[in-house]
């Protein structure tokens, strides 16, 4: 992050911060605390996420991993109090002065349950782009095709892009949602258990998709599925009772965990 200008230390001159250059560390949190009312759900989150890597967040239910993930693009704004810094391209995006709408186009999110809009497949992808003023039909069509291809859905839907997205299967819907997220050309893709509501075949398709997306995006994924974390991620963070107990290369976490609880969790002794 050496070349970046730390804009957050200065007073903002405009309402919308300017993001600095991208660096090897795509996203970093400092001293992150999340409160639901007076209950602290997450008390420690000093993590750095490397660019073009997949990082898995694992841990038992209620360990704070989803809370952490949702704080990263401010989806917790209305439900929780998030303190601390989230550094993205030299900016603290947890600052109130940051334009969250603009920020979320850089840091996209995919949720546990597929949530396509009740619109056609094409409109699902183009809608947000159109809202941001993109009107050129050829350009939009190109983005529809490229993002559906990246999400490995193009071949199945290319002939009925006008069809309602709700008519797709769950796995297809989830890949459409991923396509919709990458159509915004984000830097970072946050995924909150994206495959937990899907069957094994759809799950493995989603995993393949993520491994391909890694070339262009930084991916942070919450998963309950140990094998999934081991299969696809480069780094793994283990959350336990609101704290990050261990954060290392996935290989190391799964072969030689340093903390006993981590070992217990990944070998299925609790959680």
């Amino acid at each position, binding site marked *: 992050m050496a070349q970046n200008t730390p804009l957050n230390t200065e007073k903002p001159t405009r309402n919308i911060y300017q993001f600095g250059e991208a660096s090897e560390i795509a996203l970093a949190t400092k001293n992150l605390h999340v409160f639901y009312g007076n209950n602290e759900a997450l008390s420690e989150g000093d993590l750095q996420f490397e660019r073009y890597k997949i990082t898995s967040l694992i841990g038992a239910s209620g360990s704070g991993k989803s809370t952490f993930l949702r704080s990263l693009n401010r989806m917790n704004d209305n439900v929780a109090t998030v303190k601390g810094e989230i550094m993205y391209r030299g900016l603290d995006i947890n600052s109130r002065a940051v334009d969250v709408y603009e920020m979320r186009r850089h840091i*996209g999110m995919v949720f546990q*349950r597929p949530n396509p809009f009740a619109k056609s497949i094409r409109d699902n992808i183009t809608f947000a782009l159109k809202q941001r003023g993109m009107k050129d039909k050829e350009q939009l069509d190109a983005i529809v095709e490229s993002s559906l291809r990246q999400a490995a859905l193009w071949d199945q839907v290319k002939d009925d892009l006008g069809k309602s997205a709700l008519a797709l299967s769950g796995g297809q819907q989830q890949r459409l949602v991923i396509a919709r997220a990458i159509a915004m050309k984000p830097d970072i893709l946050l995924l909150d258990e994206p495959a937990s509501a899907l069957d094994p075949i759809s799950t493995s398709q989603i995993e393949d998709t993520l491994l391909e997306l890694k070339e262009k995006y930084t991916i942070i994924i919450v998963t309950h599925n140990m094998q999934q974390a081991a299969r696809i991620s480069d780094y793994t963070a283990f959350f336990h009772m609101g704290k990050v107990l261990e954060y290392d290369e996935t290989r190391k976490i799964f072969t030689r965990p340093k903390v006993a609880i981590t070992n217990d969790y990944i070998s299925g002794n609790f959680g």
Partner: protein
Amino acid sequence: MQAKTVNKIATGVLYIIAGLVILILAALLGYILVNGVPHLSWHFLTAPSRAFQAGGGIGIQLFNSFYLLILTMLISFPIALGAGIYLNEYAKKNWFTTMIRTAIEILSSLPSVVVGLFGFLLIVVKLNFGFSILSGAIALTLFNLPLLTRSVEGSLNSISNLQREAGSALGLSKWETVLHVILPAALPSIVTGVVLSAGRVFGEAAALIYTAGQSAPALDFGDWNPFNMASPLNPLRPAETLAVHIWKINSEGIMPDAAAVSAGASAVLVIAVLLFNILARWLGKVIFKRLTAAR
């Protein structure tokens, strides 16, 4: 007793209760339709009513009912939509919104005759709108607004929060999400609510007796300038509606065929409300299909 036996008895009792409800409804409807339908004719549906002789129709009253309904909906729907969106999408849970919700609750249980008398004092007398379609429409708005607001709120509430999250995750503002994602998805249910409330408004009498008036002056259906007194579109003319007409004939009608006119008018009213209900279901289904199925 065994769980199985208890279950059987409970099921049986529930069947009997449900059957009873249907039976009462069917008897009522059957009575009105059997008595009324034989009097229906094109002449009856289009001719003006007569005060003293036999052979009068309900043409003007029927037109008044529809015109009043449209006017009421034009006033109440935008307000209900705005209030419903605010309550469901924007309102935080605090004393102010609790107060609004309580007020809506109270307003919706207000007897319609009270709404009518309030409308008479405020709109007809104080604001000097006179007995008119406009006064009636405002009174009906007061009567309709709480129920319509809650119906809109309920429609929006039934849209999954996943859709709202999807919108914000794409960097759409709350308003963009509400306008382009939530509202279209809630549209079938909103339309159903509007049409159902239209049926309720169409059959309302008590709120109109003192606001829209009990007289139906002759209309010139060739004159569509809303500023002319004889124009059907004039919102400031007194306008007896179908429901008020039925009430009036039965309380002080002196035409020789009063019973027949009343029966016929009742049948028309019931059929209209039934049509509204069928239309509501059909329209909701069609829109839902358009939104979800293959296009």
